[in-house]
């Protein structure tokens, strides 16, 4: 039986954790392989299954994986991982696509002019290019529900701010290096703020606390300040 993709390297990280490495680049195709592997392994093996750009962390319960023959739990998990990745299963469910409304510029995106200057573009072109792309949620991290999105138009890439802000408002859509992301709650942050979504990106009262999951596809829909206000009120009312 042939594997649908070249196998990852498997590195034991701790007594109860393995790290699968699929490569060492920030690349949407590579990252999609991570999510496909996560979909196969999540329920089978792990108590935690944490995708990142090119790697996947699996945590397991060493006691329940301990072999009766004394075989180490790590070895048994490694074998189960390899078997699961090699089994010729149906391709995993296609990713969800979520369209997120964003009010670009102005008070909602105070750094958009700096991004435009850095890119040598007009502000309108920055908005157009940022909203034209289809992004992939590479991973969530930094803070609960913070999505790192792959797929930023290369011309919009910009190194992080030299002086990070102590408070970035919740919902801020920002650019940091070659990535874009959304601040799910008020947080300190060093990325350039180009807009804000009125939607709740992280809400503990919701059935699914994080709006986005690893592997999701995301598009941004530009809205104006009036629409922002209306949607914001709707979000508050839903809380």
């Amino acid at each position, binding site marked *: 039986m042939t594997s649908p993709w070249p196998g990852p390297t498997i590195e034991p990280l*701790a007594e*109860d954790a393995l790290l699968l490495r699929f490569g060492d680049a920030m690349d949407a195709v590579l990252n999609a392989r991570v999510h496909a592997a996560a979909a196969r392994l999540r329920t089978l093996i792990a*108590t*935690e*299954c944490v995708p*990142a750009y090119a790697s*996947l962390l699996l945590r397991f319960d060493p006691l329940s994986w301990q072999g009766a023959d004394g075989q180490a739990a790590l070895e048994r998990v490694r074998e189960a991982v390899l078997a699961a990745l090699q089994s010729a299963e149906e391709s995993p469910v296609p990713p969800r696509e979520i369209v997120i409304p964003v009010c670009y510029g102005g008070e909602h995106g105070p750094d958009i002019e700096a991004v435009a200057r850095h890119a040598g573009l007009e502000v309108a072109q920055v908005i157009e290019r940022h909203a034209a792309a289809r992004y992939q949620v590479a991973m*969530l*991290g930094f803070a609960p529900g913070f999505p790192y999105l792959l797929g930023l138009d290369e011309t919009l890439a910009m190194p992080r701010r030299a002086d990070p802000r102590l408070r970035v408002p919740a919902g801020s859509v920002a650019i940091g290096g070659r990535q874009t992301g959304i601040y799910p709650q008020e947080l300190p942050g060093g990325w350039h703020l180009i807009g804000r979504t009125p939607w709740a990106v992280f809400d503990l009262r919701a059935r699914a606390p994080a709006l986005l999951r690893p592997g999701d596809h995301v598009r941004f829909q530009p809205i104006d300040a009036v629409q922002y206000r209306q949607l914001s009120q709707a979000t508050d009312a839903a809380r």
Partner: protein
Amino acid sequence: MSVHVLKPGLLSSLQDGGRSGYAALGIGRAGAMDTPAWQLANALVGNRGDEAALEFTLVGPTLQFDQLTTIAFTGAPVDARVGERSLPGWTCCLLPAGSVLRLGGMARGCRGYLAVRGGFSAEPVLGSRSIDLHARLGPLGGRALQAGDALSVGEHAPWHGLRCHAKATPLSWGLDPQPWFDFGQEPLALLRGHHFDQLDDASQRALFGAGFRLGKDSNRTATRLDGQRLNLRAPLELISEATLPGTLQLPPSGQPILLQAEAPVTGGYPRIGQLSAVDLPRLAQRRPGDAVCFRETTLEEASARLAQRQQRLQRLLQRIALRLESACPP
């Protein structure tokens, strides 16, 4: 029934076994830093083991109990008083209604655990009552205890094991904290991390030889290690990957940081080591300025030590349950 916080102590928070299954959404485990001490405190009041207890740091809180309450505290040795009466740790005590318990300073160690019979019963957030101070998530809006807070206590069967005196009364037996509290501050066992080989020779030797001091700004997110600066052979450009509590990272400052219970779930610094699971609670009991030395371990040894400790802990938990039952006829 409620426990009223008169003074919060230096940093006190509700903690249980932590939040499991949400790391992929960027939500870490949090939970008690010294897990065996937390479990034993619960066991000593007859809880099943996963109830929330109070974790306090360096200076404990002052609490008033509005009803008769069974308590136990474990972890670092702490000066504990009800009125003039001093109470021992690592056993359970019955406090009459209205008692004010003052948990003071610690002669050594860093963290203590106060369990109450029935457990602290705040509404769980994502399946756990642990307060994640860094992510601001959990009961009390994810913040530390403040004066004026009232903590409710879960329903529980009445306790007959101790006669109710007018004064706070400890049980006549207790646990020996010796195996569960790191009095000797022995070296901590560290696994080589993925980027250990990228350290220059002097830094490789220093990691397992030189010794460090626990930095002042250490907290439930990370333990900072001051001492000899560690250097890479050449700078590394890394992309973020998942991290774990116990992961030893090397930021550009050259001073390693060891990730703790509330660390972000991903990180992009070189990963130079992983603390063995058995030694995480031991490190949690070091206080700023304490010495930290590492010795090298292997996964086989680390796994064996973990299995052995879990066995010992399970046996002890069973023994405690049996003793409490015999003291408390049905």
